[in-house]
């Protein structure tokens, strides 16, 4: 008797929920059917999706993961996406999370707006493009006594990698003496973004660093590795102002990629690169940069040495990159500044530039630990 009531109860509840599910499904197919719509991402990729759902969950279905904390409840405001067309009017649930600037940039809260018609959106490349690659160490060369340049060939996937100059990838090395499990570290890409099948990385030896030690001491040409990416939002700032690039040590890598971009996109903005090292033999990519300087008349290369000795026969600048800023950059200069290197160097450069009246939104940096 008890068991039969029990089983009947369970069945009844299941029938009720199933009926509700049926109800919702029917309602969905009659009320919320907006048919097939097209979402264009970054002017590049088109997605064919079923309309009617919020943008956030539609993108998740397409394996594009916009970060969000509250799970589409509109209470965290993290899932911002630029919607260029087809977003409809700004909703009151979005406005609390968007500043005036963001509204001007067409930023929207993606869990709140629904996909009802064709849309055009822009999302950070890193969210759209992150993939895992099987790569081959095609060439390893010694750039200085503690920096190696490695060239990776992308074996898989076959269509290679797409990234924005300035971005980085995560390189994974297998378990070895220093580490019982595979480890990965982030390295900026130095090669041209036009080259989808090869990546140049600049890897400085870090004392006891698991990945850098592996690369320096164990990695041989033709070895295979895993890489993930691209990540990061370091990029060439768009305006018609002059361009200033400041790098120390391996921070030169993303600058190289950006210089390639200036070259192939024929960007005519006046460009200056400050590159600081300690001694002349640490100045890697020197010849390449000098020849680029000869070829591009808008580009000036200014290396500086902080510990040049008299026997080095150095005719260029001496001192730190901050001293170059003091000499070369006048107050309130119309310039976009891009900085890459150690955190203290980045910090002192930023402080100095702000003091010189360069607005903070014209300075972009990537700190290398």
């Amino acid at each position, binding site marked *: 008797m008890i068991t039969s009531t029990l089983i009947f109860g369970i069945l*009844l509840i299941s029938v009720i929920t199933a009926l*509700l599910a049926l109800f*919702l499904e029917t309602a969905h197919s009659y009320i919320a059917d907006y048919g097939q719509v097209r979402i264009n991402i970054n002017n590049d990729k088109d997605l064919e999706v079923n309309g009617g759902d919020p943008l956030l969950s539609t993108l998740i279905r397409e394996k594009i993961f916009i970060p969000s904390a509250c799970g589409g*409840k*509109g*209470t*965290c405001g993290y899932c911002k996406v630029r919607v260029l067309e087809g977003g409809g009017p700004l*909703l*009151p*649930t979005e406005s609390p999370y968007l500043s005036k600037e963001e509204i001007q940039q067409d930023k929207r809260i993606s869990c709140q707006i629904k996909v009802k018609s064709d849309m055009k959106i822009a999302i950070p490349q890193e969210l759209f493009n992150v993939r895992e690659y099987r790569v081959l160490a095609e060439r390893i060369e010694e750039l200085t006594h503690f920096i190696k340049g490695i060239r990776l060939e992308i074996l898989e996937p076959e269509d290679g990698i797409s990234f924005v100059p300035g971005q980085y990838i995560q390189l994974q090395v297998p378990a070895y003496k220093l580490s019982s499990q595979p480890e990965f570290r982030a390295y900026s890409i130095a090669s041209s973004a036009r080259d989808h099948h090869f990546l140049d990385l600049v890897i400085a030896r870090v004392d006891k660093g698991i990945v850098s030690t592996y690369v320096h001491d164990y990695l041989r040409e033709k070895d295979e590795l895993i890489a993930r990416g691209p990540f990061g939002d370091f990029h060439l700032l768009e305006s018609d102002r002059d361009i200033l690039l400041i790098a120390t040590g391996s921070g030169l890598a993303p600058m190289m990629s950006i210089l390639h971009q200036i070259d192939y996109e024929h960007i005519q903005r006046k460009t200056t690169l400050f590159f600081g090292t300690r001694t002349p033999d640490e100045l890697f990519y020197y010849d390449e940069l000098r020849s680029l300087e000869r070829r591009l008349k808008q580009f000036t290369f200014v290396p500086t040495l902080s510990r040049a000795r008299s026997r080095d026969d150095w005719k260029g600048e001496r001192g730190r990159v901050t001293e170059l800023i003091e000499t070369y950059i006048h107050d309130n200069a119309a310039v976009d500044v891009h900085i890459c290197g150690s955190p203290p160097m980045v910090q002192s450069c930023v402080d100095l530039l702000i003091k010189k009246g360069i607005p903070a939104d014209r300075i972009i940096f990537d700190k290398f630990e």
Partner: protein
Amino acid sequence: MNEISLATLFFAAIFTNNILLTNFLGLCPHIAISRDLKSAMGIGAAVVFVTTLTSVLNHVIYYNVLIPFHLEHFRFIIFIIVIASFVQLVEMTIDRYFTRLYVVLGIFLPLITVNCAILGISLFMVIREYTFAQSLVYGAGSGIGWMLAITLVGSIREKIQKHPNLPRGLVGPGITLIITGLLSLAFMAFSGMIQIQ
């Protein structure tokens, strides 16, 4: 069983036993959406609408399906699923056919599916053994009480948020909670107002 008059219950649900200020229900959207008055009113209206209808709906289901078949212990499941699917359905309908209403009110509906206040009202209704009419009045009253609290906090917050002397750590949720606390204190003064019949 329960003899509270409808008028008393209605006012008590708004003032003396405000669902937000004395029972802490519906705090998440309260903190998130109370940044400005306009959104506060939008979500408040959506809550009034949903609480009124779901408390009635759940009342009917509880007394006509769950009790006769001895399924009371499954009430959590049924109540929340009814609320979730009801809200989803209403939102779909408004979105499709009443676009203007959608921007003002409909957009808030998905946010309040899991609003504790709505399930809370359904549960209180059962525990306190309200009749059908009492459930309707209690649902509506609690919804209005919630709306009142969020609009009050929203309008205070709009002013205080921009004050330059506001400590940085308090910006956002900190100050909202303190305003809510003060309001809750103020609402305690209502407790002598309503006479039981």
